[in-house]
Structure formats: C-alpha cells, structure tokens
C-alpha cells in the first residue's frame, strides 16, 4: 500500500493500473483564466435623443446550467455612465472592483456638487468616452499578456462635448462604436431589430426615450425566445444628462410562444 501523501485519495495502482498524473505537472503557462467559467449572455444598448438605454438579463450560466438568477450585469459608474458586462462573471467582479477604485480616485480630485450649474459631464470628471478608452487599453494589455479578461463590455454615457456615447470593447481589446450595440448572441438577434429603428446616428438622434426603451424591451423578449442561455428577468439602465436610472428587477411581459409550434428540427419531436 502506498502511504505517501501524493497517493491519498487516488485510485489504487494495483487495482486500476498506474495513475495518470500527467495533468498534475504541466509545465506550460497558467491556463485557468483562459476560458470563461460562469458567464453572462448578451448586453444590448441603443442611443436616443438625449441619452442611451442599456439592458442585460440577470442570469449567470455555468455552462448550459442556469446557475445564478439574480446577477446584476449593469454597473453605474460615477452616476454618469453605465458599464454592461457580458462573458465571465468573475472577471466582471474584478473589473467592477477596479472601477470602484477608479471612482474613488475621481472623488479625490473632483467635487461635482460644488456648483449646481455645472453638470458632471462638464466638470472635468471621467466621462464615458474616457472610461471606454481606459477599459480598451486595460483589455488590450491583458490580452497581450495572454491573460485576457473574458468579457465583452458596453460603455454608455456622454462624451466631453456632452453628446450621447456608446461603445464596446471585447476580450481582445477590439473597440467598436455604433448607434446601437449588442454583445454575444444579441449581435445576431437584437442588433438587426435595433438597426431597423436606428441605422444611423441621425436616426438615433430622432428617437425619444420611450421609443428607445420600448425597442430595447422588445429585443430582450426576442433574446429570451431564441437564446437558450437567457432569462426573463433583466436589468435596464437609462443614462441621461440628469444621471443614471437603473432598474434591476424587470420582468418580461406579454410573451407569446405561439411561434414555437412551427419550429421543427430540434429535440425529440416525432413528427
């Protein structure tokens, strides 16, 4: 009997043959962070006349298991911007804590209530455009050290000229900007719907807040119908010059699954 600690808890060699310990001493680089574990699905966002709407469902999946059902993936920053995270949830937590530190650093330098006439966007505070630039540099640096943060991030808010701002950055540091953006499955399912309403910046600048919110809610419904890693509970954030309104307890309403009758080819249908 082998009593060495290395053998504790392992199958007996005399019964099962020599133990395959090759996985214990790999000499390659650390790979633990090179694939996502607990993940969030799509984040979608749409610009309108005086701001941006963003939405993401409250699900964190463990593979195909709907593991955590009250995960808040939209994070306000300095009450002037919103950051939406798709992808790995632990990397999101890391970034969220990092952004908290950043926000406290901002509080050292600026005081946005010293004069009521100044809006936060013009008070020299870190705005959404600055924040997006910062995150894109951070993500690109991490991918170059082969330790990427496995997220696709949407940043919504205002730029230095106080116009609505929306941009994304992914785990490779790729940046993209558009009047409407969607990450993950949403890029296939929600993006075409949003483009139908706001193909260009000019179109988006004509949308009212209520219209934009309605479009985004419709997209969340389509995503729940078609994306198997999604949930009917979601969060929606509206960024305007007055600040961020975040609601984390939204429920999809007026669902209609009639279309499901016509779908053939999945699962165990016999006809």
């Amino acid at each position, binding site marked *: 009997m082998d009593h060495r600690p290395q053998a504790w808890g392992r199958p007996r060699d005399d019964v099962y043959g020599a133990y395959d310990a090759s996985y214990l001493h790999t000499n390659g680089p650390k790979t633990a962070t090179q694939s996502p574990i607990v993940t969030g699905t799509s984040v979608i966002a749409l610009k309108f006349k005086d701001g941006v709407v963003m939405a993401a469902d409250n699900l*964190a999946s463990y593979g195909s298991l709907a593991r*955590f059902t*009250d995960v808040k993936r939209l994070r306000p920053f300095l009450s002037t911007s919103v950051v939406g995270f798709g992808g790995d*949830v632990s990397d999101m*937590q890391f970034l*969220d804590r990092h952004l908290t530190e950043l926000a406290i650093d901002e509080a*050292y330098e600026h*005081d946005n*209530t010293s*004069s009521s006439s100044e809006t936060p966007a013009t008070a020299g505070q870190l705005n959404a455009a600055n924040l997006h630039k910062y995150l894109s540099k951070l993500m690109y640096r991490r991918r170059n050290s082969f330790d990427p943060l496995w997220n696709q991030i949407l940043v919504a808010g205002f730029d230095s000229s106080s116009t609505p701002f929306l941009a994304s950055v992914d785990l490779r540091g790729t940046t993209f900007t558009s009047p409407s953006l969607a990450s993950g499955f949403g890029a296939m399912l929600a993006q075409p719907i949003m483009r139908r309403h706001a193909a260009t910046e000019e179109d988006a600048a004509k949308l009212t807040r209520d219209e934009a919110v309605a479009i985004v809610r419709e997209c969340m419904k389509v995503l729940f119908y078609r994306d198997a890693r999604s949930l009917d509970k979601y969060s929606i954030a509206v960024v305007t010059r007055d600040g961020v309104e975040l609601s984390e307890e939204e429920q999809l309403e007026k669902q209609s699954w009639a279309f499901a009758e016509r779908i053939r080819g999945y699962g165990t249908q016999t006809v």
Partner: protein
Amino acid sequence: MTSIGTGYDLANSIFSPDGRNFQVEYAVKAVENGGTSIGIRCKDGVVLAVEKVVTSKLLKAGANKRIATIDRHLGIVYSGMIPDGRHFIDRARDEARAWRDTFKTPIPTADLASRMGGYMQAYTLYQSVRPFGITAIIGGFDSTSEAPVDGEVGAGPSCGAGGKVPGKTYGGPFLYMVEPSGLYWGYYGAATGKGRQAAKAELEKLDLGGPAGPSLTLEQAVKEAARIIYVSHDDSKDKEFELEMTWISGADGPTKGLHREVPKELREEAERLAKKALEDDEDDEDEEEEKMEE
C-alpha cells in the same frame, strides 16, 4: 512656553526625566499656529470646516483645497503644517484602499482613526523622524443599512451578512481627532488650530452630546460651523481668510452618504448669517460699554 528642554528635546525617542517627549510638545506648538479647523457631529451627519488663511493675493480664490476626501464617505481636515497634512492624507487614502482590498467593504471611520492614530504615534518613536506637525479631524458616515460588498453580483442572502444584534443600530456619523502624539478620541465636536479655544467654547454651547444624541441637524450644523470659524478668527493676526466646508450625510440625506463640499449657495448663506451674528454681537458689546460709561 513650557519649560525648556535642557537637552531632552534634541531627539524624538528620548523622554525627559519628568516623563515628557519635548519633540511632540513642539509639534503641538506648530499645530497651534495653523488656521482653525473644526468638526461637528450632528444628528444626521458630520460637518468639517477650516479657516484657510490667505497668505498671498496671488493665490487663486477657492483653489488649493484643504479638506480631503479619503474614501467616498470619509473626509479629513487638519491644522498645522500643510505638507505634513498632505502626507497624512495620502496615507489615509492608502489605508482606506487597503481595507477595501482586504474586506471588499468601506473602512469604518473608527478603524481609519485607529490606523491613522497608530501611524502618527510611530512618528514619535524613532530618532530618524520627527512627529507630525498637524492635528487632524476625521469625519465619516458609516452606512446604517446593509451595504453590498464591493463587486457583489447578486442580492446576497435575504437575512443580510449576519452577526448583527436586532434592535441595535449600526453605522451613523462619526468624528475623531488625532493629535501629534498619536492620541485620538472620538468627539461630539472637535476644534484645533489657532482659534481652538474660542471654537471649543462655542462648540460646548451646542447640543451635541446628551443621552438622546445630538439634536442639531446637518443644515444647522453647517451654519454653526461657519459662525464658529468666523467667531474664532482673529482679525489682528490675519486679515484675509477663506471658509472651506464639507459635509457627509446618510444615504437619505443631501450628500447620499458621500463626503462632499457644501454647495456654494448654502455656504454663502451660512457665511452671511455668520457675519450678521458677529455684527450683532459687536453691537451688543458696544451697547454694554455705553451703559457702563453711563
């Protein structure tokens, strides 16, 4: 001046035979030359104020802030040597950040005071350093409700973090003052700097202590703080000064639990009232003098 050091004041780590550390006492003198700072702990928050002596007309008005934000809910004001204060602020920010790194939660005011007290005290122990030439007033508002942990993604257990006794209140406004010796106490109202005697006398008149807690509200405290700074200002020593004030309320108050500068409108109103109160006092004194002469 206290008695002369007679050789026992040349180094930090040496006591005099009658048990005094002269270097620390000299540091206190440095504080007593600085502009007055005060802190008031009231019913729903903390107010910090400082008399910022204008040393040159070439300095921009309202620039060079003297009250610093440490974490979102914490502010520090100090009297004495400003570079020493700046370093103290840097250290306090490091401590607050280190606390967040470890516990993923904001540092309670009491713990920051304890750490900064310890830091200050270490500068009374070694030959190679001198004590801080400042006395700092630390104000903070610890969250009274169940606050989320930094980076928390879910709602957490519905019973909260646990370890809390029902019926007991947690968090609230706190005020501490740290002296060059490293000594720190919690206060209802604190004053330091050149006008501390007059300021303390005024603070004692306010309803800050008592078993039911302070009855003073945040807005009243702002006005009292402005008045006390004006009362304790000595015109014969420095002509010009600026009043700088910050406040911290709870989550349901005007600053939403954050350490913020008092809005310009409110500060100017408080200054107007302070000047008026001073003039009224002077009038009263004049009348009394006239009566005496009669």
